[in-house]
């Protein structure tokens, strides 16, 4: 059973509103003296995050700071990528874009977004963000976005199922296969593992890359020629497809939502997913298994997929320096420590990024010792798995479609599939 999240949201929001109102009064009083940074309402393109909804409910506070309101349009990850790419390049109808590790190179090198720190008020303390996320937000020596979420990979498993089956959390991929085989029991509604099958450089390819990199795969040979059809790629794909036999229905064409949803609703025994799942699975409002999960690092040789998503200032949508200051103010406000603490109070651990928040007593109170320790441990295996290049989104999406064909059984020849990817890589790196 999924809990009544909407009801909960409404109740919580009323409490939040009250505190927001009082905060707004104070801030409005402060900023009345200061000059108004903004002249018109801001438009933000984002992908849905529970923590953002909390921030949105404090819109009055931002109005007090800036004198304007804002509107957030939500699109799912793949659509957000496609839409922001088209919008940032030629249209410019949004002031703030949601960018991620995979398209940062493309956005920054094309000039679609503006370096952040020139327009980021110093008092919001950018250096407080987790160093890993700051590094991901940096490209070509400049910082481009302020993180809203990020991290590496975490192994999350069900203590009840593991102890019933008498198995230990796997440390290697061989053990993983053994464990998954032992606990997989679909006739009783328990699936051994969960993966993402949906196309996309940030979807199925994202979960596939730890295997590719873990098996020693490199995107390019030493001489700079593409190596997308290497033995490591073949092995990774074979392994990925084998593991899919244990993944619940809906995940073959699903992504993060479907596989974490399956885990949180209690259908999955073991999962390796992006780190925010950790806190989500502990949150009784989002998870039915909050009292029976434990954490670990991804089994060897998997590399955790290091990532960060965040907000960047659109170049086209903000013509003047004042407009950029305004967008920068919104970004600073939305990712501020205050807003992170509010998310923490609401149990939304996925959208926390600041060292001071991680080290706060509230954090350990909310999540105990196990999750912070696992997050700490997993950062050791976290790597940049993808090819950091402006052409990566195009190439990654191409592989995503081919991989989806393999996963859904539309094609079976793995070598042939990777050769096709290789040919495409050669084609787009040539010009």
């Amino acid at each position, binding site marked *: *059973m*999924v*809990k*009544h*999240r*909407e*009801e909960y949201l*409404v109740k919580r929001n009323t409490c939040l509103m009250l505190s927001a109102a009082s905060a707004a009064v104070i801030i409005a009083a402060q900023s009345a003296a200061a000059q108004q940074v903004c002249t018109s309402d801001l*438009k933000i*393109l984002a992908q*849905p*995050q*529970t923590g953002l909804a909390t921030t949105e409910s404090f819109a009055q506070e931002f109005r007090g700071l800036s004198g304007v309101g804002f*509107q957030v*349009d*939500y*699109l*799912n990850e793949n*659509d957000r990528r496609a*839409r922001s790419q*088209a*919008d940032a390049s*030629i*249209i410019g*109808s*949004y002031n703030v874009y949601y960018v991620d590790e995979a398209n940062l190179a493309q956005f920054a090198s094309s000039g679609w977004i503006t370096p952040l720190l020139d327009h980021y008020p110093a008092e919001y303390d950018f250096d407080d963000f987790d160093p890993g996320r700051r590094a991901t937000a940096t490209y070509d020596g400049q910082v481009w976005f302020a993180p809203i979420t990020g991290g590496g990979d975490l192994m999350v498993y069900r203590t009840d199922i593991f102890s019933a089956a008498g198995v230990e959390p796997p440390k290697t991929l061989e053990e993983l296969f053994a464990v998954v085989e032992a606990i997989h029991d679909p006739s009783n509604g328990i699936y051994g593992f969960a993966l993402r099958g949906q196309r996309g450089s940030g979807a199925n390819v994202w979960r596939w890359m730890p295997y590719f990199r873990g098996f020693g795969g490199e995107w390019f040979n030493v001489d700079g020629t593409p190596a997308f059809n290497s033995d490591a790629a073949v092995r990774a794909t074979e392994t990925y497809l084998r593991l899919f036999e244990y993944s619940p229905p809906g995940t073959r064409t699903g*992504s*993060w*939502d*479907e596989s974490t*949803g399956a885990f949180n*609703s209690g259908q999955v025994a073991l999962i390796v997913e992006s780190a925010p799942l950790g806190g989500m699975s502990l949150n009784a409002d989002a998870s039915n298994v909050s009292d029976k999960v434990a954490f670990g690092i991804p089994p060897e040789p998997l590399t955790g997929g290091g990532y960060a998503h965040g907000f960047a200032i659109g170049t086209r949508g903000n013509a003047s320096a004042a407009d950029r200051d305004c967008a920068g103010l919104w970004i600073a406000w939305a990712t501020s420590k205050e807003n992170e603490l509010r998310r923490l109070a609401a149990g939304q651990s996925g959208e926390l990024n600041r060292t001071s928040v991680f080290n706060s007593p509230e954090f350990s109170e909310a999540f105990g010792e196990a999750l912070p320790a696992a997050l700490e441990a997993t950062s050791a295996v976290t790597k940049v798995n993808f090819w950091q290049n402006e052409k990566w989104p195009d190439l990654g999406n191409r592989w995503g479609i081919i991989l989806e064909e393999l996963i859904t059984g539309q094609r079976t020849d793995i070598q042939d599939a990777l050769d096709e990817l290789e040919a495409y890589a050669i084609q787009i790196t040539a010009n």
Partner: protein
Amino acid sequence: MIARVIGKATLVFCAACVLMPLLWTLMNAFKVNADLLTPVPKFVFEPTFDNIAYVLSRRSVFGALYNSLIICLSAVGIGLVLGLPAAYAIARYPNRITREIQFFVLSLRFLPPVAIAIPFMVIWLNLGFYDTRLSMIVTYSLITTSIAIWLSIPGFQSVPKEVEEAARVDGYGPYAVFFRVALPVAMKALMGALAFSFVLVWNEFMLALMLTASNAKTLPLVASEMSQQGLNVPWGILNAAVVLLSIPPLLLLGLLGNFLNRAFAQKRR
């Protein structure tokens, strides 16, 4: 006799095939996730109005509703002003040229939307009208005008020539005959044609997807965006958005049913 019973049962089953999914969606709009995401469908539950309230409180939904109304009504208005006279001319002056024109108007429907959406996007961008209600109205008036012409021709043809002759004898000029006689007589049939063109643009998706970004976004786009957000969004909200989007076309149901009856009653004569 048994065949008749089976036949009637099949008809009832077909009607259920139409109504059940819609009633189900309507019910889901009033459910919380816990009642929605159940392995066994739940018919008895405690209704919640949060979903509808959420949908109606989103600025994007409200803006899109406004956009959809303005764009569709304006495009239908243009279709009316430009299309009805053209349809009358085609109906009253049947010759080779008007037949060709009639075919040209129909052939506009052969154009694959994707083939005009991509260039329209570039054109509106170059002109600086991309993502405005104006550009959407102009683009949609291509659809409404051609459909209004196509569907109004039979309506004008059904106006008895004797009535127009009589008016002419009374000293009406050709324009007065159109405005004072043909238009009022054919009005009921024409309403159906306009209603059809409204439904077509209200439901239109692909052009809106490519030609708007945020300012002129229409309701089908926002509904589709909501429905694609995945499990992070309560499903009840999606159902509520779908219900909201479906109401206007369904309000026209009676009008359109009448239009069909009239069109075929005429054939019988």
